[in-house]
């Protein structure tokens, strides 16, 4: 299997859709769709995220690869498919900024990994707090690009806490990559360095949450 993951990953990185699709189709002939997604797509995207973080894969490859995987997953696991994970209610948001690519990549990779989540688009602090409470969100993924926006996560976390929300917040985006201590300072529960990390964080939380 690990050979196949490597081959699949290489075909994504070189934007070879035909080869990627062939490998995925072959996997589907031997296992259920959810098993193929979890055994092939999720690890390949996680590896690409980690490789981006250490500098050997570029963002354009992560983006194009994630988008393509999302299409593949969409085909075999339609949104209402009961095999999609039973997960805590989750949402992703771009806080305060106007640069949506980071959020878009994380959203693609989450969906390509079989997760369903609300896409809140861009929101400011008050709007986000109200919406997360109204939707009874348990896992909130926040993406930012600018430092002032990263600092505003502190307001989101303290307001959610003050209102007694049972919610965990994971953050990501450039300011958190450059200052490894920032996520704790703003009161988040976790920080991810790549879109793959978002999947790993939510998977770990799922085990802990009723």
């Amino acid at each position, binding site marked *: 299997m690990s050979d196949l993951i490597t081959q699949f990953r290489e075909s994504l990185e070189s934007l070879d859709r035909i080869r990627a699709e062939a490998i995925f189709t072959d996997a589907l002939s031997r296992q259920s769709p959810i098993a193929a997604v979890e055994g092939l797509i999720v690890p390949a995207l996680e590896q690409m995220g980690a490789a981006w973080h250490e500098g050997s894969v570029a963002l354009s490859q992560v983006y194009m690869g994630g988008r393509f995987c999302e299409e593949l997953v969409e085909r075999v696991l339609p949104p209402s498919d009961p095999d999609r994970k039973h997960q805590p209610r989750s949402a992703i948001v771009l806080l305060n900024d106007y640069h949506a690519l980071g959020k878009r990549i994380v959203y693609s990779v989450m969906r390509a990994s079989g997760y369903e989540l609300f896409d809140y688009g861009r929101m400011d602090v008050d709007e986000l707090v109200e919406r997360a409470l109204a939707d009874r969100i348990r896992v909130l993924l926040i993406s930012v690009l600018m430092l002032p926006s990263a*600092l505003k996560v502190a307001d989101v976390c303290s307001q959610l806490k003050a209102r007694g929300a049972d919610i965990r917040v994971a953050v990501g985006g450039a300011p958190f990559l450059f200052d490894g201590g920032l996520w704790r300072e703003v009161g988040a529960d976790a920080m991810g360095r790549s879109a793959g990390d978002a999947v790993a964080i939510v998977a770990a939380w799922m085990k802990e949450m009723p």
Partner: protein
Amino acid sequence: MNSMQRVLTTLGHKEPDRVPLFLLANMHGAKELGLSLRDYYASAKNVIDGEMRLLDKYGSDCAYPFFYASLEIEAWGGDTIFSADGPPLCGAPVIRRAEDIDSLRPPAVESSPALQRVLEAIAGLKQRLADQVPIIAVAISPFSLPVMQMGFDRYIELMHEQPDRFLRLMQANEEFTVNWANAQLAAGATAICYFDPVSSTTNIPRGLYLTTGQQVAKRTLARIKGPTATHMASGRCLPILGDIADTGTAAVGVSILEDFAQLKAAAAGRVSLLGNLNGIEMRRWTPAQTELAVKRAIAAGGPGGGFILADNHGEIPFQVADETLLAIRDAVDRWGRYPLDWVRDWVDPDPS
């Protein structure tokens, strides 16, 4: 030595009297004048006064009349969103559909009030500084500008899926960037900082850079009538440092995400390096951490010249305290004097 001599000496890969410092705290000028960022950038006079005060207070080795990246987008018909506590950002894309590119015309520098304001600021600074202190002006590269013109996601798709339109967009942008950079040089700028982070290996693989960003840079820099430095805005560049040098640039702004000693070895007399302080982390630095960061950068980059100490993004966040900027200045005074004899025996107390 004055700042100009210091900078020219290091760019010639020789050791000046001390490590030059580019303290690129352009937004702090608004703080000095007690103005909001919106008001500050609304008039050239403010930026001239602000930059002069910053030079006085922190003794940086350059003036930096960079307003904000989205200013170029204003010239293309877009708008800018201001906020109280951070850099102005560009609003909705000016290229809404890929087909818009087919009829895209580069705006004239003369007809943009925003660009004229920058030219006025450069001319005012030149009048005050003569040739004592270099004036570093900014042009966003034709290859990186589309992120603001059309959004990053759609730009990546364009690059991969519509090569002809991509080339058409580069033609229009190259025309604009060349005119804009040359107008700034004519107004009195000493050099152009060519911001090209999309070319960074953080964003695209080397293979794609060689056929896109590097070609654009070669064509564009050849037409800019003055010296240039290429900035990756804290994106990675170690695997392409030699390729960037081949574009004819004099210096490269590198990233804290890569090992500075390795970057220095790769640059080896071919290009100078600009770096390598972490501007985001700087917000939380104590005086001791500040001194250590400066020592680390000087130890790795200083020997032999070819090095200017700066933050790794080309813009220090608004949130960084004045005390920290002063501590950087003091640390350079203390540890940046050539010859850098202390470097040989220095052991990093916390290598990681």
